[in-house]
């Protein structure tokens, strides 16, 4: 498993597409894909949004993520770094962040490589750059 993270607009999708030798548009889009398409896909993007969609559909994102890591350990996951702000007043937003953070930690824990993108530059923060 490989986790590619970083802020918005830092080149995560391009890096993932280059890594998989495919077009960025062909990656499984966590914002709009069928939830059933996630297990078994080569790369899921916007996992932080997928977490919200799982919650909206009454699915525990932590359990979903643990199962994904267990059953599909070759998945590449792209996920925004979201934690560098004020903890929001809205309870629903707090629960989403909590779930996103926990899922991110589970994915990172199961990944041999974690890459943080800054200004289009991949920095390996766990393992070796592929």
């Amino acid at each position, binding site marked *: 498993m490989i986790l590619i993270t970083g802020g918005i607009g830092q080149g995560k999708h391009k890096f993932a597409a280059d890594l998989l030798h495919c077009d960025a548009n062909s990656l499984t889009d966590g914002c709009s894909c069928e939830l059933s398409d996630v297990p078994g896909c080569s790369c899921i993007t916007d996992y932080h949004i997928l977490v919200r969609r799982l919650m909206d559909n009454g699915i525990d994102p932590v359990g979903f993520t643990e199962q994904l890591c267990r059953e599909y350990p070759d998945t590449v996951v792209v996920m925004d770094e979201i934690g560098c702000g004020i903890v929001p007043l809205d309870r629903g937003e707090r629960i989403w962040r909590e779930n996103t953070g926990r899922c991110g930690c589970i994915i990172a824990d199961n990944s041999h490589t974690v890459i943080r993108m*800054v200004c289009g*530059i991949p920095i390996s923060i766990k393992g070796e750059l592929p």
Partner: protein
Amino acid sequence: MITLITGGSKCGKSRLAENLLEHFAGPKIYVATMQPFGVEASAAIDRHRRLRAGKGFDTVEKYTDLHELSLPDNCGVLLECIGNLCANEMFRSQSVSYPAERIAESIIRLGRTAAEFVAVTNQVGCDGISYEQGTADYIRQLGIINSLVASEADRVIECVYGVPVMLKGVLPC
């Protein structure tokens, strides 16, 4: 030599940028991009002027249309900051524009004519907030500029409370 300095707000990027040019022997030019709108902007500009005082910079104010700017060859340049430049371009009229590629090209062109070129930018979009369309577009446009400039830069530095973290290249001694 093109250096891009990024980091969150108020993390010491300006001082780091000035320090990189401290021992530059030739003429030094400061390209100021912040428009003096309001009390806070004026205070920030005053503060940066005080920080630069006595460091030998000539100031050129350029808030938009960076492609119009030409600078003498082989000077030292500090451009501050790309975040302002992007906002000034995007929101200068009623209709939002998408100037990322044009701004990045202008920065890279200036960077290549200078002997030493340092551009300061901003790291935004890591706070997990879903902003309205204009702000969301701004975050993406700034990300595109930063990535394009970084790909041509010799050095890319992330500043953390004044501490330089090298993302690309080597920090000069």
